[in-house]
């Protein structure tokens, strides 16, 4: 039987994963708080099923993504294209940390499933693992990943 202390310790070590998923999918502070609690709730209640076949971080990533994507969230109010223009100053120079900021905006412009696929890929997950987490086939994952990378590269070149 899993203990609350063991669970809390594991969450403490991996809470960056939850924050990351929330930052990628949520647009309102209230939603952020609700979703953080909801992910912890779902993870805690599902924790007895965690057999340690995969790393805890992978398991938590999956729980966080599945919770966020089945949760009712407030709509996004910011138009992403307006965000892209904010990266340039009037003289055309780009603001500090522009590359990572541009990547963030490009990722947020993707649909939610594509966003999940690319973030898992950038986090170092293999296509097979992404397929298992998403429920896609391995081939389909590869096809989608190729298309998403092309889209992102195109968007980043526009800056």
């Amino acid at each position, binding site marked *: 039987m899993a203990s609350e202390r063991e669970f809390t310790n594991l969450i403490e070590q991996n809470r960056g994963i939850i924050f990351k998923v929330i*930052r990628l999918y949520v647009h309102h502070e209230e939603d952020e708080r609700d979703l953080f609690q909801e992910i912890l709730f779902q993870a805690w209640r599902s924790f007895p099923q965690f057999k340690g076949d995969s790393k805890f971080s992978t*398991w938590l990533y999956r729980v966080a993504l599945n919770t966020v994507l089945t949760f009712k969230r407030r709509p996004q109010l910011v138009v992403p294209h307006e965000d892209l223009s904010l990266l340039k100053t009037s003289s055309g120079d780009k603001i500090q940390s522009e590359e990572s900021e541009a990547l963030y905006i490009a990722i947020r412009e993707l649909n939610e499933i594509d966003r999940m696929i690319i973030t898992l890929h950038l986090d170092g997950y293999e296509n097979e693992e992404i397929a298992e987490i*998403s429920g896609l086939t391995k081939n389909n994952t590869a096809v989608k990943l190729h298309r998403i990378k092309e889209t992102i590269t195109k968007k980043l070149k526009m800056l």
Partner: protein
Amino acid sequence: MDLQEAWKKLENDKLTKPVTGAVHIQKKSKHPVQKLKTAYLQTTGFSVLFLICFIALFFYFHEPLVKIGLVLVIISYIFFFITNFSMYRKINVVLPVDKSLKQALTHTHQFITDNIRFQKRVALFIYPVAGTAGFMMGGSIGGGNVEEMMQDPKVLLIAAIVMGVLTPLCYYMANWMYKISYGKCLVELQERIDQLEDPN
């Protein structure tokens, strides 16, 4: 641009920043499935309240026909109470979140759709029975003899028209309310399932 490098920087600078108020494990879910569970509990409470009222009305009215109508309503509400309470107890707010995303999405969508369909079907059975009893009670309060009243073809025709209008009206009202509560959530879930099923 090196995507991996930009991603690492993004992670450190922005993505892993703590969420405000993220401190403890809460004991209650705010998931749409939990909302359904709460709705079942509320409906169960209302059905008990209505049952008490209908039982009181059963003793208030003396016309046998009204009493028969009320017995039917009481039986319907007992059935309504049992089905709602058993659904409330059956709902598990712990989702298959440790399965694949496709499984979690499909499960949640199916679960919400099935429960709404179930609630609407049960309500469709309740509306005409409750409506007929209400019609007869109205006749009784109006001072008329309900048995004589119900033998009048004109009254029967009016009753049939009223039921014919009220039942679908209540059904569509309920449908509209479900659409407001869960419609957007279901559309979004379906969109994500479609995105997963899209081969490109």
